[in-house]
């Protein structure tokens, strides 16, 4: 058993761009769910808009990277308005239903062959990073230290990803400690009480939906930068995994989503490496490699269940709150 490789691969997930992308998407959900109490089950849809909103103008129109980012963000705001305007006046569950459905509609639109010329349908889009890579300050080659050895492309995306996560975390921290954050947390507790105090609850809910959605969209861009854009990434399970990351870290915290994402990916990589090597070594004679690939998700699921059962406030949540959870 090559424990070194297992731990090494797990360590890589500590800083991988994917970990950063999940952290950012979960931070968006923290704004929605943890702070405002909005049930957005369509975070995958916001991420999809980031991925395609960036890749399509880059590939089909040859736009510079910043224009692609702005396109993605604009699409995200429009999506949030379409979802929020009709539902945020209604009971909380309506948003949940509409978001999960809308995210699926988006994914199917980008999967269908009708728009193949633009979306690449199920095969997706690749090589859309050219404009951004022209700015890569890292010299060509593979380098690093310990288990963290990557090529210059990955280093570049990794640094961008964590800078964006850091900026988003500071931004979220700033708004949540302000009077704006106080209103939003009040809405989470009881929106009628906040309304009775003269706050335009509807407007705050829309602002929150847009903000968390924008973080999801940026996360979508970060997620696809090191890979190709394929619609099947953006299944509803992606949203559920991001909720798991959020609950793992702590729903109404700034660093929770980041810690949650790191723990999630490190655990996943560790289990996956361990199970796969254990099967090769004949430790689990009843299991094939394909089954082993599934098992890692089961193990991660069990690990998350244990954490949620024994630490429902998440790794960084405030334990004091638990005494009052109804």
């Amino acid at each position, binding site marked *: 058993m090559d424990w070194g490789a297992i731990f090494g691969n797990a360590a890589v997930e500590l800083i991988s761009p994917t970990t950063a992308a999940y952290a950012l998407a979960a931070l968006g959900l923290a704004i929605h769910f943890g702070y405002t109490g909005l049930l957005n089950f369509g975070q995958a849809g916001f991420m999809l808009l980031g991925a395609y909103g960036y890749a399509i103008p880059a590939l089909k129109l040859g736009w510079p990277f910043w224009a692609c980012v702005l396109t993605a963000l604009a699409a995200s705001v429009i999506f949030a308005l379409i979802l929020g305007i009709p539902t945020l006046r209604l009971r909380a569950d309506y948003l949940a239903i509409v978001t999960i459905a809308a995210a699926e509609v988006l994914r199917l639109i980008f999967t269908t062959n009708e728009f193949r010329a633009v979306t690449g349908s199920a095969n997706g889009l690749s090589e859309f990073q050219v404009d951004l890579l022209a700015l890569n300050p890292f010299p060509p080659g593979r380098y690093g230290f310990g288990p963290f050895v990557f090529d210059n492309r990955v280093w570049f995306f990794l640094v961008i990803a964590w800078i964006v996560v850091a900026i988003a975390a500071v931004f979220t921290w700033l708004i949540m400690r302000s009077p704006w954050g106080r209103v939003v947390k009040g809405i989470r507790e009881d929106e009628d009480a906040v309304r009775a105090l003269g706050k335009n609850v509807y407007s705050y809910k829309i602002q929150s939906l847009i903000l968390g959605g924008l973080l999801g969209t940026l996360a979508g861009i970060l997620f696809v930068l090191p890979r190709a854009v394929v619609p099947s990434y953006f299944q509803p399970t992606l949203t559920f995994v991001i909720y798991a990351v959020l609950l793992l870290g702590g729903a109404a915290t700034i660093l929770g989503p980041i810690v949650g994402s790191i723990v999630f990916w490190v655990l996943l990589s560790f289990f996956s490496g361990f199970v796969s090597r254990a099967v090769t070594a004949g430790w689990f004679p009843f299991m094939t490699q394909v089954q082993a690939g599934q098992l890692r998700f089961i193990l991660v699921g069990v690990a998350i269940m244990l954490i949620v059962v024994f630490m429902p406030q998440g790794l960084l949540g405030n334990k004091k709150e638990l005494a*009052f959870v109804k």
Partner: protein
Amino acid sequence: MSSSVTPTSKPVKTTGLHVGDAAPGVRKVDPILIADGVRRTFGGLTAVDVEHVEIPRGAITALIGPNGAGKTTFFNLLTGFDKPDTGTWSFDGRSLAHVPAYRVARMGLIRTFQLTKSLALLSVMENMKLGAKNQVGENLFRSLIPSIWRKQDGEIEAKAMELLTRFKLDAKKDDYAASMSGGQRKLLEMARALMSDPTLVMLDEPMAGVNPALKQSLLDHILDLKASGMTVLFVEHDMHMVRHIADWVIVMAEGKVVAEGDPHKVMENPAVIDAYLGAHHDTDLGADSEHVEALKELIDDEQ
């Protein structure tokens, strides 16, 4: 609901509020709130059907009536939390029909809820600060730069501290609102409502579920509101309390205003006795027998 609590000193009653005979819908000398033809039905049930009612300014008005009379629904309609089928109503001369709840609150008409709405996982201090009006830091873009809102936030905190001290909640300021007793939450909700310096405060059963010691202080606080120039409209079941602090009483039954008057005289009105006894005959709610008890006590009291 035994009424052992009485105010320490006899409050000064405001009189001469109405013009002409004290009949339902009687005109007031200086009304702050006027409602006309306000009707709300739920399916076949007419919950509220108020032809005309005026709330006198600068006084404490009690809205009483048996359970299901439509008092809470009327509150919801007046404050924009529910929409009537028909009707107009105005506050301080400005029409409130179709005005959303948050704008009603900004105009200075603040209400509390029958089922207390404290913001459980916010601290008592945060609950209070949320009540303040015109906060620059509540704008998303300005919220990003603390130097823009910090000074105002400090002032709001000082004001909140003053109110909390007055309501004897200052020791709990950093606790979650969820950790307080039901009575303390009622106090908090009332204190929070005062953060915006309202002109009209509408309290839906402020004493329900509050222990006698706290009732006493709640009562004094309501009298304080009047002393500091606010108008109070409150729903209450405890007749002794109503009689002691209210300057005017409006009685609702089955959605309608059935009687109005001075708290000492209105109880003798046959329509009021009818309203309570009628409701008692129709339904078998335990709470209604309380009203009858209270009413009997009061009539005895008066004689």
